[in-house]
Every structure is written in C-alpha cells, then in structure tokens.
C-alpha cells in the first residue's frame, strides 16, 4: 500500500467539494466562513501534496501554503469581524438579511 499524488489530490478535491457545498447552501454567515476555511484547507493540502511529490527539495508548494495560511487567517479575522458588524446592525447573522446591494 502506498500513497501517491493522486490520492492527496483526490482527498483535497473531495474536501473542497464539501466546503463548496457548505459555502453555497448555508444561510448562517459563520457557517459560510467555516466552509470557506475548509476550502482553503483543501487548497493548502493540494499545495503541500504537489510540493512533496514534484519539488521535494525546493519546497515551493510549502511556502505557498504558508502564505495561503496567512491570507486565510487574515480572511477569517476580517470575515468574522464583518459578521459581528453585520450582527450589530441587523441583529442577525443570516445572509438573507443582507440586501443592501439590491439595485
């Protein structure tokens, strides 16, 4: 039994799909943020997988994963701050309550 790049990529694709479903279907903003984190996580897994199998010495994928983590940490911080800001105004974290962009 061995582990190959396709195994890692398949796992990442499945995780990403589950995250995508959550991000699209959920009404609760916190839940949507969590689904986005799951997707980012799948992307990082992909990067690390490629790094391990394609560029084991340069570790390029690992560095990309580090920066991707920085960005998603910033994203979740801002996103959750936004959720709280919305909650202050609307008394709700349901995305359906936000309709300001209606033309």
């Amino acid at each position, binding site marked *: 039994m061995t582990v190959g790049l396709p195994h890692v990529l398949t796992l990442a694709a499945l995780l990403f799909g589950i995250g*995508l479903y959550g*991000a*699209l279907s959920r*009404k609760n903003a916190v839940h*949507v943020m969590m689904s986005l984190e799951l997707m980012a996580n799948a992307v990082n897994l992909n990067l690390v997988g490629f790094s391990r199998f394609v560029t084991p010495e340069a570790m390029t994928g690992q560095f990309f994963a580090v920066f991707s983590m920085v960005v998603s940490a910033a994203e979740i911080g801002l996103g959750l701050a936004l959720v709280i800001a919305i909650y202050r105004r609307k008394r709700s974290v349901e*995305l*359906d309550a*936000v*309709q*300001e*962009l*209606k*033309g």
Partner: protein
Amino acid sequence: MSMDWVVLIPLLPALAFTVLAPLSRAARARLVPVAVAAVLGSLGLSIAAFLAVWPGGHDAVWQGSFTIAHIGDRAIPLGLALEPMSAIMLLVVTVVGACVQVYSLGYMHREDRIGWYYAVLSLFTAAMLALVLSDNFLGLFMAWEVMGLCSYLLIGFWHEQEAPRLASIKAFLTTKVGDLGFMLALAVVYAEVGAFDFATVLHHDWAAGTATLVALLMLFGAMGKSAQFPLHVWLPDAMAGPTPASALIHAATMVAAGVFLVVRAFPIFEVSGIALTITLWVGLLTALLAGLLATVQHDIKKVLAYSTISQLGFMFIALGAGGSTAALYHLVTHAYFKSLLFLGAGVIIHAAHTQDMREMGGLAKKLPVTSLAFASGSLALAGIVPFSGFWSKDEILTVLLHEHQYAAFAIALLAAFITAFYVARLWFRVFTAPTQQKELHEGHRSMLAPMVALAVITAVIGFFGPTLGDFLGHEIPWPALGTAAISTVAALGGIALGWYVYGRRTSVVNTQAIKQRFPHAYGVLANKYYFDLTYGYFVVGGYTALTRALATFDARVVDGVVNGAAAAWRSLSAAGWTFDGRVVDGAVNGAASAVKAAGDKVRTLQTGSVRGYQTLVAGAVVLLVIWILVKGA
C-alpha cells in the same frame, strides 16, 4: 513470540473512546458495554504482560517505537516499553479502572449522559496506560496532558451546576501551572541531552547544577499533578465530579502520576541532592498539613480528598529520603485502598443522599457489605497490621530511619497518628453514631462486587511486599519489629483518640467546646490555611491589576500616538479634498452621469441577495473549469 500485543493495552480503551465520542447521546448510552469490554480486555492483557515480565529484574522485555517527526537531522521517536515497573503500574491502573467502570454501571445508570462519561473514562484509562508504558519523557508528557483534559471534563461532568464548572476550571489552571514546570524541564533536558528516552536521559553525565534545575522543574510539575503544597488547592474542589471518577482519577491513578514521574526521573534527583531534600520537605509539609485539614472537614469526600493529598505527601517523603521503591510500593497499596474508600463513599452518598457526615450515622447495620469493605480500606489507611497500608507506610518509616532523617521520622509519625485519628473520626461518625435516617439501602450488586474485590486485595497485598521488591529488582524487607511497634502504637493512639472523641455512645466529647477554646487554630484550619483567599487575592487579583495598568497605558500612550497620527492624516486629506472637489469632480461627474444612465438599465440584475451572488460566481467558476477541461482534452 512477538510481544507487539502490548500496544493493545492502551489502544483498546482509546478505541472505545473513538467509537463512543462521535455518536449521539442515545447511541453512546447503548454502547457503554463496549467501554467496559475494552477495559476488561486491557486488564486481561495486563495480567498476561505481568506474567511475561515475571520474575522481573531490571530489564525491559519488550520495546517498540515509532518516529513521529524529524527536526533537522534529529528524529523524535515515541515508544513504549514493558519492564517490571510499568507491568506493576499496568495492573494497578487496569484493576482499579475495571473496578470503577463496573461500579459506575450501577452508580451512574440514571444519568442520561452516561455514554459521554464512559467515553472520557476510557480516554483517561488509555492515557494513563500510555503514561506508564511510555519509554520517554515526551510521550509521558503527552499522556499526562491528555489525563489533565479528562480530569477537567470529569470534574465538570455536571456542568449545569455552578460548583463543578468552577472546580473544573480551577483544577485545570492549577495543574497547568505545574505542567509549565514539567514542560520547561523537557526543554532543558532536550537542550542538554538531545533526546527524550529514559535510557539516554537517565544515563547522561549530568552536571549537578543542571540536574538540580531539571529535577526542581519536574518536581514542580509533579507537585501540580499530585496536589502537593502549595499547589494542592484543586484536589478538594475536584470532588464535585462523579464519585467513581474521583476514585479512579483523583485517588488512585492520575494524582499518583506525579510520584511516578519522580520515580522515573529518580537518577536525576539523586545527582542533584538538593532536589531530594526539597522533595522530602514538600512531602512532610503536605502529609502533616493536609492530614490536619482532613480532621475538620464534614464532607465525607473532602475528608478522603485531604487524606489523598496527605498520603501522596508520604510518597514524596519516601522519594525525598531516597526510597523510590518504597514510594512506588505505597503508591500501589494506596491506589487500591483509597479507590476502595471512594467507592464505599459513593455507596454511602447514594444511600444517605448527603455528603455531610453530621447527617449520617448508624450505617453499619444498614449497609453490612459496604461497612466491611470500608473497614478494610480504613484500617489500611490508618496503618493497622495486616492491611496493606501498614506495610508500605512502615517501609517509608524504615527508609527514613535508615537514612538517619530523625526529624522527618518524627513528623511522618505525627502525620500517621493524625491519619489514624481522622480515619477513626470518619468511621465512628458514619457507621456507629446514632442513626439519623430511616430509608437506607445497600448498593447494587454491580457496585458491591468491585468493592469486595478491592477489599480482598487490600487485605492480602501487604504480604507480597518482598516479592514486589524482587520483581522490581530492589529490596523491600519485612518491617523491623521496632519500627512496626512504633508505627502501630501511633496508629492505635490515633484511633483511640478518635474513639474517645467521636465513638463513645455514653458521653460524646463536645467538640464545640474545643473549637471555642482554640478559636484561632480552628479558624486557620476551617479556612484551609487561607490558601484559596491568598491565591484569589494575589494571583487572580494581581493579574486583574496588571491588565488594568496595561489598559491605562494603552489609553494614555498608545492612543495618543495613534490619535496624533490620525489628526495629521486628517489635515492632509482635507487639503486633498479641496483639490478633489474643484478639479477631479468636474471630470468625474460628467463620466458618472453617463455611467448612471447605463447602470439604470442593468440594475434590475442586482437582487441584493448575497447567496444569489455566491451561487452565480461558483456556477461561473464551475463552467469555466469544465470548459478548460474540455478544451484541454
């Protein structure tokens, strides 16, 4: 024959946890037998492991390790090893663990979160078994932390109530203070030796100074886990958890992990010397002061909790005097008789519906089996021959005499006298004092059977002391007649005093009068030497004061800088705004009106629904991906 099945001993309860934890409440409750079966399986395997190690000696019979990570060119392996000491501990943990789990079937059967209780109990058992089997400090530390988590979860099991919730947080934080010491010790060990496994670390050529540092840091960790002065404050409060969990975690196994750690690291302590002296005095202080506290408690579980602290102090005394085998011996006997006492207390609390000893009395007639089993445990705790506590306590006293620690010997003897006194107080108050309640029922069979088993072990295990010594590769002699006589006199004296004050039917000594004659002494004891108040005032209060000071600094200094920068920026942007309004706006407005006209046409597309936009974007991306794939193929 390959001995790799040893791995299964901690793995079986761990698997039981993984099966139970993700399920729903109802499904967990149905699968409780899985947890019981797992711990019984571990018990069987532990007996097999013990027989495989027999007749003992020094060497490990089996060892296995797995590399979890590489840092640079250094590998970090985690391994398990089966040797005499771990074989003994395996038996202690699995026997007490199995007894507690069977007992809990009866004790907790009305609880609707019984499944969760069993899941955490299994995780705890797995961690404790991994701790005793671990062949390196890192694995020991990991198991140690998992146990801390389980202890937190079980103390706070009834988290709907205020007291268990606060107690669980207190226990977690207090032990965490100690754990910090352990963690720093690990860092020093790794910096000095470059490895964690016992063989390398203990045979390292330690300089006395480094050894003292490591030993003291480890001692600090052990003091937190084993509730030694001054980090003992969490254990009495931890009694807010379910009684069988207290029996397993806060009497028999987890609190003994600190003693176990010191026994493991003993060669480092021996190099240091100073660390041994400090260990001795920590133990003496704890044994004496906690014993005194036990004499004024009214809650039956708190009496047992302070007694546990005091007995752990005895183990530290033995360690400090250089008798690691004696400490381990007392750890083993104490695990059996103290868990027995806790299980008995559980039956009593179930029957009497109170934990206050003043509302009990006359239980001996109503609960015959429990009272007999409790008697066995009490006599062992008091140190009466031939029950187990007598032999191991005598062993500790012998070590003290042998090392010419006469002051320590006297204090230990005094602590033994106090122990016998509070045991007698507990016994006479609960079992022989005038009956106060009518409806009293003996516990269920599933609760009595484990207690009887533990009572039998407590009654006979003392005769196997020398055998145990041979097994560990050290000597445990039969007690000398002189020491035995002195300690028996002390124990009988304590019991006699207890009987004189609390036991006589005709004229009960008015304890109120004693309290009034020595109000200061009683106040100090009743307030537990003001430890909780001191910590509350200085540590928690100090922290709050510090945060307040920092907040002031923030408001005065940091905000000032930020505000200044903001003001500068504001004036700059005001200048820009003027330019904007005159020149840029003119151009922009023209363009904007053109765009607005176009936008009016397009705005009907905008529904404003965030989720609608999301779906739109995701759908477009999916279409794009599929298009790329089709084009590429």
